[in-house]
């Protein structure tokens, strides 16, 4: 998980310093004595009192001037030179439920500073990290002077306000790369149940194509000596691919997030998966894959995203590499494969009408390993499938999207079981089997629309072109693959459209023209809608 950027400023000591509260930053404190005035006669006393008041006002004014001057001097010093300072003590207040160790782990950086500038920076980072735990309503970091006998030191006081209600809920519409259509998701969270910053959540999601998912998870910011958060999640997933590939998938899995940094993530997943075909119309290759399987895999994700916006990138680049190896348990009967994905996106501003050229390429390959791996087919749910309603500009989940083609609408296909009706043999369609090698590429030119209203709403236009290929490699099929055949396997499309970004999702209304498709592909020329979520 990336460390969030600095957000809220830290609190500073009162501007009127006292002998004990004045920060030890400047190393000295001017002390001025109040003058005492005594009058004899009442008139003289009144005159004297008036004079005293005037003198008091002048003294306060001069005091304020001197304090302001000192502060200005302090800021000047801070901006021009490194002011040495050490932290004597860090005091944590306000945590009634949260363990001290959780807070101290996030503010560890405060103890190892040597200057005021480093202290201010470390305090900002600590403030952000404490907010990032999601269990505090407010965080206040205050600096005060250290003990008199230790000049050049300061005490840091961290005061947290814990959330009153540990329970929170969420509800919304989302899209995910692996799911065919929109998912309606509701989730509930329980924060800091045991005082370790633990975050418990449960979610229930349902999509229009009868795919459903029930999951529950826990996230720990600190687990023993691991410096990164650790997450565990149990998921019960049911997906219906009957219409496209004649099978339904149900899986019960446990995933562990072992490492989560800004650019790196490692997770382990073990799941029991069941493929079934209630319709009993599946093709031969799908029939061979129906049954139970145990998936035990480790996935490593490396991600760099330097784009200025995930919804409408106009500058920057992004690169994602996902490596997954399955079958790491000693049991040879588990599903064994190696899967690799690459995503590269680039956005180049053209300098007029907020126009930007986006281009990207995504590739993926899957191959089984173990005894007889050359003759073994790859696992059907783990293969690559192209097509759908998501935009490749915003999606960074491997080769999945291709404008103009329906979900799982291209690639290797096989005829389904022969259907008998009324004495005639009917064509019952084809099953899309996915591919072991997938490549997609696109270019997209986005531009602002002439109307100001549309520009202010963020609605813009784009024109695009894309190409994609899906090829089988397993069961010795790679021996028959040549460069010419690979080249001929590419499908292409182009089009124009309008993009409407909303708070929940990004919608595209496109007119797609299929330039090239092969037999059995489900590409369609015409108006299509595409949805993406950031």
């Amino acid at each position, binding site marked *: 998980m990336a460390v969030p950027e600095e957000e809220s400023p830290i609190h500073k000591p009162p501007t009127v310093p006292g002998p004990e509260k004045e920060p030890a930053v400047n190393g000295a404190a001017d002390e001025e004595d109040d003058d005492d005035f005594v009058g004899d006669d009442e008139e003289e006393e009144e005159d004297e009192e008036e004079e005293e008041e005037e003198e008091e006002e002048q003294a306060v004014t001069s005091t304020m001037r001197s304090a302001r001057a000192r502060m200005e001097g302090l800021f000047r010093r801070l901006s021009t030179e490194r002011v040495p300072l050490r932290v004597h003590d860090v005091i944590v207040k306000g945590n009634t439920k949260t363990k001290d160790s959780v807070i101290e782990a996030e503010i560890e950086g405060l103890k190892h500073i040597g200057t005021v500038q480093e202290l201010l920076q470390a305090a900002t980072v600590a403030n952000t990290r404490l907010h990032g735990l999601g269990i505090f309503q407010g965080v206040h970091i205050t600096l005060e002077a250290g003990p008199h006998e230790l000049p050049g030191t300061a005490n840091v006081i961290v005061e947290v306000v814990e959330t009153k209600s540990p329970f929170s809920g969420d509800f919304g519409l989302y899209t995910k790369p692996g799911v065919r259509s929109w998912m309606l998701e509701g989730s509930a969270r329980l924060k800091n149940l045991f005082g370790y910053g633990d975050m418990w959540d449960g979610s229930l999601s349902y999509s229009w194509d009868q795919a459903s998912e029930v999951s529950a998870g826990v996230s720990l910011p600190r687990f023993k000596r691991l410096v990164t958060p650790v997450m565990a999640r149990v998921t019960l997933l049911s997906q219906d691919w009957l219409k496209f590939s004649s099978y339904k998938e149900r899986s019960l899995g446990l995933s562990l997030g072992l490492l989560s940094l800004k650019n790196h993530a490692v997770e382990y997943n073990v799941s*029991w998966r069941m493929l079934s075909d209630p319709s*009993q119309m599946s093709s031969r290759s799908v*029939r061979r894959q*129906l049954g139970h*399987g145990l998936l035990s895999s480790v996935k490593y994700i490396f991600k760099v995203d330097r784009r200025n916006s995930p919804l409408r990138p106009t500058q920057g680049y992004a690169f994602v590499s996902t490596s997954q190896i399955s079958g790491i348990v000693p*049991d040879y009967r588990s599903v064994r494969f190696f899967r690799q994905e690459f995503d590269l996106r680039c956005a180049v501003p053209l300098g007029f009408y907020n126009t930007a050229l986006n281009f990207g390429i995504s590739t993926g390959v899957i191959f089984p390993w173990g005894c007889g791996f050359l003759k073994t087919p790859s696992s059907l749910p783990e293969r690559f499938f192209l097509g759908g309603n998501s935009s490749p500009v915003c999606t960074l989940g491997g080769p999945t999207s291709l404008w103009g083609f329906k979900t799982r609408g291209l690639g290797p296909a096989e005829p*389904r079981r022969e259907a008998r009706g009324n004495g005639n043999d009917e064509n019952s369609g084809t099953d899309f089997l996915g591919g072991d090698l997938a490549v997609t590429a696109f270019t997209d030119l986005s531009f602002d629309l002439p109307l100001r209203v549309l520009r202010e709403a963020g609605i813009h236009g784009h024109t695009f072109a894309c190409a994609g290929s899906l090829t089988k490699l397993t069961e010795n099929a790679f021996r028959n693959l040549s460069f010419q055949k690979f080249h001929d396997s590419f499908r292409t499309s182009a089009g124009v459209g309008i993009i409407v970004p909303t708070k929940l999702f990004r919608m595209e209304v496109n007119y797609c023209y299929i330039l090239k498709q092969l037999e059995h592909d489900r590409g369609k020329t015409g108006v299509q809608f595409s949805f993406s979520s950031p």
Partner: protein
Amino acid sequence: MDEANRVREKLTLVARKGCFGLPTACPSCLPVYIYLRLANVPFDIEFNLINPQADEIPYVESGDYVAYNNEKGGVIEALKEDGMVDLDSEISMVSEWISTKAMICSWLSAAVTYELWLGSDGSSAHKIYYSDLPWPVGKLLYLKQMVVAKQVLGITNENAERKSEEIYRNATFAYKALSARLGEQSFFFENRPTSLDAIFLGHALFTLQALPLESLVTADQHAAVNMLIRGEYVPRPWPCLGEAVGMFLSSCRLQLLCWICKKAEERSNHHLLHNELESSVLRSKLAEHNNLLRYADSKAHLLVAGSPFPSVPSSHSDPSSSASRQGPSNRSNFNDSGLELAKDRKILSGSKPKTKPKREKTQEERTFKRRSKYFLLTQLVGVLVFLSLLGGSEDTEDYDS
């Protein structure tokens, strides 16, 4: 025309894995296999190792045509109805044929289900259905299937014993009826193979070879019996009774074990396992009918297909099979010398079409059996007399001292 084309395309039978010397060890799949063999239809066999509880398996496919087991009354009925393979022409309307087939499909099928899932330790079921699944998955599915089997048979904790008796009673009646119907014929009806023969042969061969055995003799005792047979035994003296008495009792014990082994051997015509004292209940009931055993034995060559069995290494290269893995036990059960007995289990080899030597009770064996009984009885009487005499002499010595 389409049906003719379909017939020309070679059939593929997708079944569960083979073991226990059977090309497919699943009681639902073996009858289909035998049916296709009886019909002399060339077919390939492939295994599904990952879907143990699917009721659509076995299924037969030919191009885009598929006949599932949970449609049209079963694979055999589907093949007949679709005009693929039909052995029951002109007999399928005979009432006796229908009732006999129904009896096999209900009573005997229930008995096999009971013994496979509830009446044994489950080792056979585990080997047939779950040995190719990862352990946690296989274990959970096995436990689930046990519950399903109870529900299918209508067995609860209260009526378990009664149901068991009913199942075995029905099986006994079925075997008697089938034995009477078969007599000394080659087939059950009209002296030609029908689907009824295939179903019964599948049941009989599975019962004889795949159901688990009960052994009352430990490995040590088995070794001691072998030594006794070879005349090499060294009886273990029992110190508490004196060396002579202990050696005498040891020899009696070993001779008793040998006699029991011989008796068990004579009871069945198909195995000479020295460590086998008691077979499964269903097997023992089947073994009471020699003509049924002869019938099954005579058709054992059907298990040797013209097309290679999957256990043969060359068949594993089939890339379309999702069952390319074979358990190592399958390879050890097949023997190129033909039908020979495995070391620990009765099998019917699949590599060469040789017939098994028949074992029948001869006059000599009956005589040996009778003499063994007399010998053991004499030994027992001698031991009792010796002990009584020994007990009396010790009392006398104590009295004198």
